[in-house]
């Protein structure tokens, strides 16, 4: 039986000597706690909503004030924020366009004659159009606006001594999008990232260790050819991985993206930009990592941070401020945003232009860094 002790001792000694294993054993779960806890525990705030007002009276103003004053709190009331951000829009057409382009998550329509009707004790309805491709935000909007409608009813009764009611009609702007569909774009991006850890970085690490990278140097291949070749292979592997994930999402998970040729081309382009950027980033990291373990044990936490702050599993509106700021710099956030628009909203190029611009800039910078890092490592 004492033999077991020695075997155990060996493992423990090795564990203590290997700081990266220790750190990653702690960092991973801790990041999960903080990021997941903050994402899901945070309440949804600052949801942008377009307001189309065709009635300018006191009651509708009161309604909008109630909506504006709504607070959503998280962590037992420690952190609160305005639930909604209202933007006045002149026409329903324009509101619809903003909704389609992902600039707002909902549009409130206050119909003509609402104030008149209420003054005359006639029941009224306010309509809200919801971007239901984001089911969590949509639920928050619909709950908040319903609450506001009830409060308005109460106030109207106090003033007028009659009892007209204000109801809220919710209209889903899109077909019913399930949560699993909401998550799917993030899974495509994660498939790319994991392919770039394994197919990109780790295979380069092995090649470097085994002397294969040096082996290239005695051939007439140019350095830039080697770099481009490695990145290109990484992109192909990552695209394959992402498209397989898309196929599985459609066939197994019941995800129903819009069948539209232009959108599909834009989707492919999004995946390509994302893949090239992430592959370049991980390649630069792999060739410059001080030890293979550093790369292997750090790429997992990097994946967690990028994935959870990308809005892949929970709307960014629900993040605490520090996490929202992280997502501003997170390329995966832009990829997820663009993919969601393209898959469920049938967005045009104009809607994803900002995402493309960020992804293109990120990718260009990463390709340059990877090229320089790789050349020095060769």
């Amino acid at each position, binding site marked *: 039986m004492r033999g077991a002790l020695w075997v155990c001792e060996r493992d423990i000694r090795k564990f203590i000597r290997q700081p990266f294993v220790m750190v990653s054993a702690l960092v991973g779960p801790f990041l999960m706690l903080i990021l997941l806890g903050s994402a899901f525990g945070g309440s949804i705030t600052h949801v942008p909503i377009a307001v189309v007002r065709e009635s300018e009276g006191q009651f509708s103003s009161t309604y909008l004030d109630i909506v504006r004053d709504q607070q959503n709190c998280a962590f037992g009331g420690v952190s609160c924020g305005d639930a909604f951000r209202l933007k006045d829009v002149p026409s329903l057409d324009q509101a619809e366009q903003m909704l389609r382009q992902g600039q707002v998550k909902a549009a409130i329509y206050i119909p003509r004659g609402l104030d008149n009707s209420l003054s005359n004790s006639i029941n009224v309805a306010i309509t809200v159009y919801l971007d239901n491709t984001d089911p969590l935000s949509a639920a928050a909007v619909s709950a908040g606006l319903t609450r506001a409608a009830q409060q308005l009813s109460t106030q109207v009764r106090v003033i007028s001594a009659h009892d007209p009611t204000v109801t809220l009609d919710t209209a889903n702007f899109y077909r019913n999008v399930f949560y699993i569909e909401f998550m799917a774009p993030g899974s495509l991006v994660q498939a790319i990232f994991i392919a770039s850890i394994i197919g990109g970085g780790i295979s380069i690490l092995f090649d470097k260790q*085994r002397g294969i990278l040096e082996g*290239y*140097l*005695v*051939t*007439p291949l140019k350095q830039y050819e080697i770099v481009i070749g490695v990145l290109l292979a990484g992109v192909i592997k990552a695209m394959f991985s992402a498209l397989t994930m898309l196929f599985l999402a459609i066939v197994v998970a019941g995800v129903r993206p819009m069948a539209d040729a232009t959108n599909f081309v834009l989707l492919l382009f999004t995946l390509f930009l994302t893949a090239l950027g992430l592959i370049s980033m991980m390649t630069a990291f792999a060739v410059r990592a001080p030890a293979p373990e550093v790369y292997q044990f750090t790429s997992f936490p990097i994946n967690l941070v990028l994935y959870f702050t990308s809005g892949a599993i929970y709307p960014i509106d629900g993040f605490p401020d520090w996490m929202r700021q992280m997502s501003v710099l997170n390329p995966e956030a832009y990829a997820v945003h663009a993919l969601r628009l393209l898959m469920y909203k049938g967005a045009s190029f104009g809607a994803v232009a900002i995402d493309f611009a960020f992804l293109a800039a990120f990718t260009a910078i990463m390709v340059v860094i990877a090229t320089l890092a790789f050349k020095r490592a060769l």
Partner: protein
Amino acid sequence: MDAAVQTINITKRFGDLTAIDQINLTIDAQEIFGLVGPNGAGKTTLIRMLTTVLQPTEGTAKVAGSDIRRSPNKVRQRIGVVSQAMTLDVELTAWENMELYAKYYSVPNPERRERIKELLGVVGLLERADFTVGSYSGGMKRRLELVRSLVHRPKVLFLDEPTTGLDPQARNAVWDYLRKIHNEQKITIAITTHYLDEAEALCDRVAIVDFGKLVALGTPAELKKKVMGGDVIEAEFTALPDEAFEALKDSDFTIQIGRRDSSLTLLVKNGAEAVPKVVELVNAKSGKISSITLRQPTLDDVFLHFTGRSIREDTAVTRKRFVSSWEGMRR
């Protein structure tokens, strides 16, 4: 015919360490040239410079007609390299490994296919061409690496420790294939090794490198003659009094003598005549010989002579003090 390789004061320093120190040597076209030295002597550094992977700190070299500093790409096109590390892709078949290399060197297709077929045939791997390399034995992998470096018909083939880690049988096979390749492909071969028997068996000429310096250069026979001019007697003792050792050391037939525990190694002018004299002398001083052998000097003896150490002791970096240049011999 021009020299295949000519180094001019080639030097490589890593910080304070001078890995290669002002080496001048010439490798003739179509010879098999051996770079011999213990681990850490600088052989690999020299090869890495000659194959354009490393830039020399000083000096330069002409390889296959081009300067390694001025036109490394021309050099690369004309050399083949088999590095110390196994760099085959084990997931791919032998054919695929060959094909990719041929593509790196822009060998066009009808020729590419024929060349691969021919080369796999040379090393007896044609039948296994479509097997993944992962299923190959160590010897087969080495053979494949050997011919992979020849797809583009290089003028000079560099091999860095080609048989390290192989069992004796596989080593012998690699030697045979190297000789065959040398004969059939009309190629210059430069090989580094720390196996002296390998250098002796394969090489037309040998350069001994130690601490980054060229210490000796010549054919194995020349080197042996230059140093020794005699035979080697090895004797094991059950009793070896100091007087016996002194008497042997002072005798007129002994050129050099080395002692290690209960065994002696003597370099003598004429072995056949010296053996009975040794026995006689030892007996006279009441010593007792348990075995005695006479042999031709080997490159081990040459190496020992030039560097003061046996090549097999992995003491390349720490110099020891030696009583005689033969002390510390392990045999």
